[in-house]
């Protein structure tokens, strides 16, 4: 599965930018050092060596909520900037449509405050949906069984999130197929598998009946069988045989832990597995895989920074934070 290099000139510019940007990625030692800091002011000084230097200034007062937004803003700004330089926005859209679907979930719940920067779904479109004008609802949402049967009107908001998740996964699948990149397609297919497992595992913990996932997450081409099988298997320890493959192996390893949140550990491990798998794209001189691998590395870095900074502000145990640092790009 070696990425093909057949479009140098088109992707050269954006990948040249990435060559410079990726030089500032942070190693794991940086995060460990950050965790060991005693004062938040010292953390802010150290953050001046990261992408966040344009977003924070030493001496300013920061609330933990503000910090949370800064990481997302930083990622979105860089992603949008790269998107404008890409010959095809598809590799970047795979990361940014999550914002669109979070905004869409708000709009369908009649809320008009869309906190995430829109990528494919404009504010006008979201505002119209919030005012119950469903003409511009995305095709991926209209494909859900709940929409087609008219069940969606007056549905429980928790179940609405499942429908939006289904639409989001269908959209990911659609975009990944359009990229025509084997690496990206494989990554997204495994990501969707893990997303379904995590969503259903969490749903089971919350006591949401599994039949709702069959009703509202489907149809996802190629995954309906998995959803059906997981839904009719009430014992989570038996899921490994259903999942199969590399993701099934990771799930099995996580199930061996006792008295811990299996799904959280699974999410952490599968994220590292998928990031390492996609990292091969970073060795491409120019092409969509390079952009995809970079954004994945940037997303992981922002998640690590968010974990460490928010964790330290909220006095979370240092050993817990160290154990949850995701694998770094460098």
């Amino acid at each position, binding site marked *: 599965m070696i990425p093909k290099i057949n479009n*140098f*000139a088109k992707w*050269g*510019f954006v990948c040249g*930018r990435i*060559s*410079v940007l990726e030089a500032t990625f942070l190693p794991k030692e940086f995060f460990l050092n950050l965790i060991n800091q005693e004062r938040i002011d010292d953390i802010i000084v150290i953050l001046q060596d990261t992408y966040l230097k344009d977003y924070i200034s030493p001496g300013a007062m920061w609330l933990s909520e503000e910090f949370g937004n800064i990481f997302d803003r930083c990622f979105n700004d860089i992603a949008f900037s790269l998107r404008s330089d890409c010959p095809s926005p598809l590799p970047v859209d795979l990361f940014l449509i999550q914002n669109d679907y979070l905004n869409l979930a708000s709009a369908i719940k009649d809320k008009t405050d869309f906190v995430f920067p829109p990528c494919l779904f404009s504010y006008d479109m979201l505002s119209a949906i919030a005012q119950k004008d469903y003409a511009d609802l995305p095709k991926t949402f209209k494909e859900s069984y709940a929409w087609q049967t008219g069940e969606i009107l007056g549905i429980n908001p928790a179940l609405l999130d499942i429908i939006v998740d289904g639409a989001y996964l269908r959209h990911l699948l659609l975009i990944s197929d359009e990229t025509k990149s084997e690496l990206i397609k494989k990554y997204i297919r495994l990501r969707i598998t893990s997303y379904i497992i995590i969503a259903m595992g969490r749903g089971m913990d919350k006591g949401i009946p599994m039949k709702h996932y069959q009703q509202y997450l489907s149809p996802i081409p190629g995954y309906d069988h998995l959803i059906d099988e997981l839904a009719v298997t009430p014992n989570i320890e038996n899921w490994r045989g259903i999942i199969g493959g590399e993701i099934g192996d990771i799930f099995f390893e996580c199930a061996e832990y006792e008295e811990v949140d299996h799904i959280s550990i699974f999410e952490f491990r599968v994220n590292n597995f998928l990031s390492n798998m996609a990292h091969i794209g970073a060795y491409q001189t*120019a092409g969509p895989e390079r952009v995809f691998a970079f954004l994945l590395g940037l997303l992981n870095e922002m998640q690590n920074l968010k974990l460490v900074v928010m964790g330290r502000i909220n006095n979370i145990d240092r050993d817990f934070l160290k154990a949850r640092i995701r694998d770094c790009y460098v």
Partner: protein
Amino acid sequence: MSPEWIEIGRGLCYGGAGLAFGLAGAGSAWGISIAVHQCAGVLREKPELFGRMLVMIALPGTQGFYGFIAAILIMTQTGLIGGSSIKISLGTGLAMFFVGLGCGIAQLMSAIKQGEASAAGISLIARRPESAGRAILFPAFVETYAVVGLLATVLFIIFLTQPVVLKFLG
């Protein structure tokens, strides 16, 4: 041999010369374009690296000159430039045509691939500017085969225009 065949032979020589510099020039333009795209992206973030990037951009341009040298040599040796009136048979014309074509293909491919190697080198310099010296080596290795292609072309042209060979080819 009739005068028509001699004219065809001469025409083939010039066709070979045209292919030599045409393909080589196209390859160089293509190779430079690949390197320049990558370089422009790097310079957007780090304009101070321009000096180190310049050599990497210029390297795929040499093939165009090699093609030009080969074309000039074909034209001088066959009498288009210089006015010498050697007799060009159909055999000599065909030989010159394929020498020019071979030279053009070698220069075209090496220029494109050198552009890709330069782009990879530019990527390395962007991440580690101290590696600029090593990064220049990658496209320089590709250059070797462009030079070998030119040398072979020069030797072929000189050999093919020797009186003994001209007589042998008709």
